[in-house]
């Protein structure tokens, strides 16, 4: 039972990070129909920016995360303008290739600036609490709490504000959005900004647990793609549910089968779900 609870907690902590990263990816896909293969690289960049702010500039952790989110939002905007906006009416494969180019560039830049080594991100939340035999580290509580907070804020922003509604509107009908006077360019930029900021926040939250390195985005990249496919491309609840689902499959595979099989089973679940429901869990029927 304790084992189960402990793994549940582990899974939820990991799931919050997956969900946060997947949300950014699914938002961009939903609104712009771009499979942004550079998303993992933005995640990585977010971790490094936070790391630099913490260790070089010496800003407190939470403030550093906030600033990193802003910096990444800006990077997202630049990326949208320079690369993805010009490709918006082209085939997905082309956007994918361009995204791979961006990924190469960001990874190489990180290695050039910070070196190839793993780096440890310091955190003030190093404590451990024991709840009914379950080890609860403060950092993981922070991961869960902050992710949930960010998701709620994002949800309220999308559902309760007119600006948020413009994002949903554009996802549902781009021309319709233009027709009511929404500046779709601005919404694209906003979406990229939010997407990159979410990735940065997720990375900064998990980094004290998982280390920072130039290639840290590659692994998460495949996973979040799996997640948004699992959840249904462009679906926000799909990204959240998919994120927790994959994390729980992974942790429970680790717990009850074998850690080495966690990935394989995660992807097997994806293949099975898609074979049964080709468009993912949360897509509307075709």
């Amino acid at each position, binding site marked *: 039972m304790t*084992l189960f609870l*402990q*793994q549940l907690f*582990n*899974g939820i*902590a*990991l799931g919050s*990070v997956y969900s946060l990263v997947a949300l950014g990816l699914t938002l961009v896909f939903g609104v712009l129909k771009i499979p942004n293969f550079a998303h993992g690289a933005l995640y990585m960049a977010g971790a490094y920016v936070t790391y630099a702010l913490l260790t070089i500039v010496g800003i407190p952790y939470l403030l550093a995360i906030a600033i990193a989110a802003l910096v990444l939002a800006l990077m997202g905007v630049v990326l949208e303008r320079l690369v993805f906006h010009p490709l918006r009416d082209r085939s997905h494969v082309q956007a994918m290739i361009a995204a791979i180019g961006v990924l190469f560039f960001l*990874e*190489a830049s990180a*290695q050039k600036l910070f*070196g*190839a*080594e*793993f*780096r*440890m991100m310091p955190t003030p939340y190093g404590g*451990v609490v*024991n709840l009914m035999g379950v*080890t609860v*580290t403060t950092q*993981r509580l922070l991961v869960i709490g902050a992710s949930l907070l960010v998701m709620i804020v994002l949800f309220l922003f999308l559902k309760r504000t007119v600006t948020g509604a413009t994002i949903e509107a554009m996802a549902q009908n781009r021309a319709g959005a233009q027709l009511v006077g929404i500046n779709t360019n601005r919404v694209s930029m906003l979406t990229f900004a939010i997407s990159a900021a979410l990735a940065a926040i997720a990375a900064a939250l*998990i980094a004290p*647990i*998982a*280390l920072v*390195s*130039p*290639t840290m985005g*590659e*692994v*998460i990249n495949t996973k979040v793609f799996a997640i948004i496919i699992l959840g249904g491309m462009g679906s926000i609840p799909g990204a959240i549910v998919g994120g927790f689902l994959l994390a729980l499959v*992974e*942790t429970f595979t*680790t*717990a009850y089968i*074998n*850690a*080495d099989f*966690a*990935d394989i089973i995660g992807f097997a679940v994806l293949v099975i779900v898609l074979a049964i429901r080709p468009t993912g869990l949360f897509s509307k029927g075709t």
Partner: protein
Amino acid sequence: QQVVNIGFSGPLSGGAAFYGQNVQSGIDMAIKEINKAGGVKVGNEKVTFNLVSLDDKYLPNETATNTRRLLQQNNAPFVFIPHAGGILTVQGFNQRNPEFLVVAYSSEPKIVESGNKLTFMLPPLYTMYHEPFVKTTMQAHGKKLGVIPTTSAYGKAWTDTLTAEWKKQGGTVGANNGVDYNTTTDYSAAVTKTLAEKPDVLFIGGPSQPTALVIKAAREQGFKGGFIVMDQAKFEEMDQIVPVSQMEGAVGVLPLRDFRGPAAQKFVAAYRAQYKKEPTSEMALNYMGVHALAKAMELAGTTKDVAAIRAKLPDALKAMPKDKNVYNSTGVDESGHMIAQRIMGQVKGGRITQLTSTQR
């Protein structure tokens, strides 16, 4: 006056870039030293060296292409390669025309088992660690081993032989909960599962920094026992991530900086000054490798005949300047394996201390 190119093909980008750069820096340092001292005298000629490094991203096919390039474009008689896949691939053609010496930095047994005549293997076989590691930790902590190392090829091989040794000495071994240390985001799930078996000792290891994280996760979840740390992880890098106090009860490779002997101390000081980071055995062994080759050229009186140079390697290690022989090597065995002292360490009383020394 002749310049000999020394080739290096290793990961300089991607996930293993840090490792590749470490190896590269050891080679680089030795070459710079030799050149600064005016080179070596081969026959009647002064010979200096030039390092040609190529990135292979840890991919064997890239290693093969790089190696051919080093041979054809740079006439390099030696190619340093720090990963088993690449080494095994080029061993397929290093005894053909043109011949070249593979300088292997990998402790994969197959590399020397194949009987390749032109291979010089730098690190000691990892199996030498097993017996003392198991003995020490089993005595100190108990007979139950939890297994949670990295799942790389190297990690798997280590796991197989180590767990066999653990059983041989009368212990019990839990399920293998290995995870890929290069791709895992959160180790807690694997640690939780391993700790559920209530082990006394954990076998861990992979790149240093993730290894430290596994220790951290285990301690957070209340693990009180000891650790057997695979030689890929280095205490002197791990203590950058977790305090030494958390590593209490761990056995592993003694940090180079704690290795007694003038050559080691000199090397550590020089390396830190030049590269602004902590040197480990990766740097030191490759550094020794270059010096040994230079000496062997001198002794063989040729820069081209790699078989002759290879033949002189055992003598070269004995004859090489004492202050370059970081690990007090006494030679090279039949199969091309460098015989060196690698001292084992343990964390005891909050300090990293020497365990026992063995020779191979």
